């Protein structure tokens, strides 16, 4: 997916993922799976905003406001985090019109 259209993609956390809080990180596990993942503070912030309603760009804008950073800088980090989480099959992606990505 091209970067420009990826910014419009809407990520949604997969149902049933087990979350276990750590001091600055988050441990994720899909029941029945043999792997677990740890999200650092940045990835955790992205993960928590992946509610199936916000686009990647909207998540980046919200985090830029929260951390007082330039939206362009944040967008790259958010895009990378969403791609990584999708590759780990922890997120589902769809287009603004609802088509699965």
């Amino acid at each position: 997916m091209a970067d420009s259209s990826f910014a419009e993609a809407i990520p949604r956390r997969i149902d049933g993922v087990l979350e276990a809080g750590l001091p600055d990180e988050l441990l994720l596990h899909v029941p029945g799976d043999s792997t677990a993942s740890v999200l650092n503070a940045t990835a955790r912030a992205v993960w928590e905003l992946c509610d199936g309603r916000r686009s990647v760009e909207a998540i980046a804008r919200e985090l830029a406001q929260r951390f007082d950073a330039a939206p362009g800088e944040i967008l790259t980090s958010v895009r990378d985090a969403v791609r990584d989480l999708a590759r780990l099959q922890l997120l589902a992606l769809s287009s603004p019109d609802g088509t699965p990505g």
Partner: protein
Amino acid sequence: MTAPDVRTVRVRFDGLCVSVESSAPEVLAEVERAFRAMVVDPPRGGDVDTVVATLSVTRLDDGYEISKSGAEAAERGPLAEVRRAIRYHTTRAFLEARTEWFWVHAAAARRGGRGVLLPGSRGSGKSTLVTALVRAGWRYLSDEAVPLDPASDRAVPFPLTPEVRMGPRRSLSREAVSALCKREGALDRSAICREPARITEIVFVRFAPGVSAILEPVTAGEAALQLLDGCLNFQHLGPRAVRYAAEAAGRLAARRLTFGDEDAAARLLDGPAGAAGTAAS
């Protein structure tokens, strides 16, 4: 000609018992060596402990056959393989009878109010390090499998006889490590901790030739992942294992100890830096 007598050796853990039967004295001697601190005399007047498994070992012309009660297939091999199989099946039987605990592939030792959990993969130096700690005055809990009570962080003693790999002090492939011979670590009975001990810290162990001893902090996330990786009964616990690994990693100090000299590593853990935080030696 009369059939040879079958004798039984009983291994006890937490009110449970695994019986090993054989007419081959060398097999029973192996069991007694492998579980010296856990072997008990046969009961008089009825069983107090619950027998969770019975292993039967028969001497053949070309080796031995070991079968476990309730199992479909028997295993065959030389005496060394029988020793390995007995350690494995005995540990497994106790684990399957106590699945509410978080069993981790680790060594553990206690000194005063400190309880150190030493997780590490095969060949990482757990047994070498824990025997060095015992030489330095620590008390021994286990060198292979540590059952943790998630409600209290207490490690229940599982004092198999430690087995230390003998080999060159240099980096080896995983296959080469597995092929190394083992010798029993010297263990005085007075050094064995018989009561559950609260784990206060986690030290991930890694053997590295040429390094004396280095202790470094580990993030809670990495500690949680490594605890899960070493969990021996994840299939029983599932989500509870994930939650406990995260809780323990968030609550307990976690570090990595890289060492090539186990006595230097023991001194490092023993010293003020070992008790308090990061140190290098």
